[in-house]
């Protein structure tokens, strides 16, 4: 369970998060959607401790996110834009993360095979294509069998085959009881994946709840329209 309470963040004069209350339920795929600048990435970075909120709090399994980085051992993350040290190989990059995660971390090499990164493992990053780098970034999020996987716009820059592998992977993670948090500004992508949906608009939660309920409630089979008709509803954690 990940809880956000009254989360606030502004960059200078720009209020990006203006009091976000949200509950991400375990064992489900939660999609965070919204237009560019709605605060999706900032919300995720707050969860990962990359951005420090101005107000409010975040709890992961009841533990408040603060200066102790230990909680992040349970989270795997792929950011929107990825760059790795140019003169290291993909394998070395992987080993670095492994080293930082501790000896108990387990590497899911099978995912490397399926994403077709395996042949490039000993190539230096600077010689890898942009697509391969993005695949590596996504793979690294799943790599150490985390309980929570956070993906920020993962499909951007992925070829269709890799996208299909990613979707399968997300679904298989869910079947293992993992929590997946994924952002996208292309909602149609998430139709077949998301269990719950969070709609952010101008730094606030416009809607949060299960996709199924949303469809039933609104009578709209199409996710985008369903959200549109639910926009101002307040939803809190169960």
């Amino acid at each position, binding site marked *: 369970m990940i809880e956000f309470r009254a989360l606030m963040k502004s960059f200078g004069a720009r209020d990006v998060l203006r009091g976000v209350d949200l509950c991400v339920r375990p064992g489900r795929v939660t999609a965070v959607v919204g237009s560019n600048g709605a605060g999706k990435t900032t919300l995720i970075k707050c969860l990962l401790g990359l*951005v420090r909120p101005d107000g409010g709090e975040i709890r992961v399994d009841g533990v408040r996110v603060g200066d102790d980085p230990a909680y992040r051992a349970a989270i795997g993350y792929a*950011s929107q834009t990825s760059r790795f040290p140019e003169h290291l190989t993909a394998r*070395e990059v992987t080993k670095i993360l492994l080293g930082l995660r501790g000896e108990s971390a387990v590497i899911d090499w099978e995912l490397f095979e399926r994403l077709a990164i395996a042949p490039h493992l000993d190539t230096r990053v600077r010689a890898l294509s942009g697509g391969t780098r993005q695949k590596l970034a996504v793979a690294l999020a799943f790599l150490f069998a985390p309980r929570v996987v956070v993906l920020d716009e993962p499909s951007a820059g992925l070829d269709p085959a890799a996208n299909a592998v990613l979707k399968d992977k997300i679904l298989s993670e869910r079947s293992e009881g993992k929590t997946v948090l994924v952002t996208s500004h292309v909602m149609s992508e998430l139709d077949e994946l998301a269990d719950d949906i969070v709609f952010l608009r101008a730094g606030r939660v416009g809607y949060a709840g299960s996709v199924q309920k949303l469809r039933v409630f609104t009578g709209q089979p199409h996710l985008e329209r369903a959200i549109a008709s639910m926009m101002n509803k307040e939803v809190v954690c169960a």
Partner: protein
Amino acid sequence: MRVAAKIAAFQLLDVLRSRWLFGYAIFFLLATELLLRFGGDPTRALVSLTSIVLFTVPLAAIVFATIYVHRAREFVELLLAQPVGRDAMFAGTYAAMAVLLSAGIVLGIGMPFALRGGAGVGGDAVLLVGAGVALTLVFAGTGVALALRTDDRLRAFGIALGVWACAALAYDAVLLVAATALAGAPLERPLLVATLANPIDLARVVMLMHLDISALMGYTGASFTRLFSATAGTAIAAVSLAAWAAGPALLGARLFRRKDF
């Protein structure tokens, strides 16, 4: 500490493979070797080398640090999303950078002197290498702090060049103009204090006291000699330089701790 060491280790590997560090070391190696071979006696070579170090080291350190921080940004973000503390991340990155830049100077200048058994000026050569390392720390730290404050890469690069130009050239120009304007006033002490306030000048004066002592003993006699020529003077200078080195690094650590990625 172990986490910081791991972080430092991979960055060392990355930079070593990029080979630019060898270029940096070879630059000093060539300069030292040529000066020792063709530049007259070793003291004279050291004097010339001091000028080179005072000019290039701050520039290289601040520019490298600024660029390095920006280039590493996304990967740092990924690493900070792992169970890694910010202080460890900063310490590792800063240490790697300091070690790399310092190694270029230590090897580049140190080797030609070491191969000659110190060339009769071993102590002064060590002092120069020490001054170079101190300036590296000061300006690498400044570059890091600057890059952390300024997200725009080009702007950060421009500010870095500006800071360097101020410390290396403009500061002394202002001192000289001010001293000329105030000629006749008791300037010895104010100038000395002003010198301590700029790490490049501080390093320069420490080297001068060892290399150009004849000249300096002349005019600036009393207060100067009292301050610098004794062992205590070198110790004061070393402490000042250490403080100078620590300042930007601590500021950088503080900025890094609060930084939003």
